[in-house]
């Protein structure tokens, strides 16, 4: 049964240094507030998992909180590169990170396997590309037809964190709009946190609503605006201008650092010496 706590407490109780953490959200409902809280608490050596790392992971990688990134698309959608991600991969700044990359279909099925508590899922993909040789997939033959397909291993994050529009007092959650892989991420994880725009007296199911019952969630924390500059459909707007501005902020290491320091997001990563 989900406990309703502050965001600070939710993160403190669930995320430890070295954990594998999935802060999911497919362009919509990205849990920025939770990611920032995690940086403020100084978590480090994280394995960050996410289909679309986006600006939040660019920030987390940029301050050096990640030792490893598992992902399928590391871009600033519609704008261009994630410069902090690139700087880490291309130049090892502020530290080198290991990457494990997949296709979207691969990552999605890895979450499905995790949510299903199966060790793998089967799909068509990877074969005939260079991805297969550079990531963790295996060929598997269909026992009926002999066709060779691809097995992708389950994702089982230590912690999954997602953002949603609302929760009730028992921690039942409803999100709507683009649902991404949030449900799968929560079900696949050992521990889970859901931040929400608002607490409501009663969840009223709505069109396109995805309800996650409180009894499969560990902590729910209120965090109004908690997905900005991403958005929560019907409540906040995507700040497309900020996505464009981030390109300039993140291109420059000093400007990036200043931006993060101003918001108390730098010192927590514990890499002040390494990076300066």
């Amino acid at each position, binding site marked *: 049964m989900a406990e309703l706590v502050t965001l600070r407490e939710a993160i403190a109780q669930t995320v430890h240094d070295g954990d594998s953490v999935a802060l999911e959200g*497919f*362009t*919509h409902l990205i849990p920025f507030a939770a990611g920032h809280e995690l940086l403020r608490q100084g978590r480090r050596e994280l394995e960050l998992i996410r*289909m*679309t790392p986006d600006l939040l992971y660019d920030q987390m990688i940029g301050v050096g909180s990640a030792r490893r990134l598992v*992902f*399928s*698309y*590391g*871009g600033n*959608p*519609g*704008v261009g*590169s*994630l410069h902090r*991600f*690139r700087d880490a*991969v*291309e130049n090892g700044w502020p530290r080198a990170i290991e990457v494990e*990359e*997949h*296709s*979207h*279909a691969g990552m*999605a*099925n890895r*979450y*499905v396997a995790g949510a299903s508590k199966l060790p793998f899922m089967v*799909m*068509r*993909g*990877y074969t*005939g*590309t*260079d*991805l297969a040789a*550079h990531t963790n997939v295996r060929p598997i033959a269909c026992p009926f037809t002999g066709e060779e397909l691809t097995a992708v291993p389950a994702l089982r994050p230590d912690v999954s964190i997602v953002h949603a529009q609302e929760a009730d007092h028992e921690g039942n959650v409803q999100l709507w*709009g*683009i*649902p*991404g*892989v949030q*449900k*799968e991420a929560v079900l696949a994880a050992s521990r889970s946190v859901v931040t929400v725009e608002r607490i409501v007296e009663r969840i009223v199911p709505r069109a*396109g609503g*995805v309800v996650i019952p409180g009894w499969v969630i560990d902590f729910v924390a209120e965090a109004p605006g908690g997905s900005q500059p*991403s*958005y929560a*459909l019907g409540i906040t*707007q*995507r700040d*497309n201008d900020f*996505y464009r501005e981030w390109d300039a902020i993140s291109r420059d290491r000093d400007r990036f650092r200043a931006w993060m320091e101003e918001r108390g997001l730098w010192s927590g990563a514990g890499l002040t010496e390494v990076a300066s």
Partner: protein
Amino acid sequence: MTANGETAEYSGGELQTIVAARTLIGKRSCFIGVGRPSTAALLARMVHNPKLVLVYESGTIGAKPYRVPLSIGDGELAETADLVVSVPEMFNYWIGPGQVQVAFLGAAQVDPQANLNSTVIGDYRHPKTRLPGAGGAPEIATGCEEVVVIAPHSTRTFVPRLDFKTTRGERTTTVITDLGVLTPIEGELTLTAIHPGVTVEQAREHTGWDLRVADNVQVSAAPTAEELTALRELVSR
């Protein structure tokens, strides 16, 4: 240049978008990412094919955005879609089984077999440029019936050998650049059309391999007044 009797100036990029939109005439559904592919598909809905079903990998099927979306997850896509599905459902029930007919894809590198690279420039472990990665492209390119690639015509993009093969090219039917149109003939991308005012030699110069040229290269029809007006109205929204 003349189009429908009028003189209209247009950029290579505009023509590229307009030519891409024309590939959607008579098609049922199209998978699109952001940027020029999205603009082209919206233009096709405005001018050629109002019933065209737009599918974005964010899970929005039948989206009808009024403005060109910045991201594939813009709120307007979910609000106007016929249905919105999870990412696993999108790939497992819609993309993989070929429910979506045409896909528009872009890439940083394209090879003569229309294979695509969107992963790295340089060595994988020590890349010169780390690109965003695969995203949905590999399974989209093998799931959809036809793939249309939209890319800038340059020797940096059209390379004899990819630094990384992210996406297979065998379902690609058309590559549309700002200079012309390439089509696979006997398995190799071949120049089949040039845009008005472009020479075959220019296209060859901007290709990183010895580009084959079809026996009778067509010239793309110039934008009609309707196409150009609609496109400009669309991007100004």
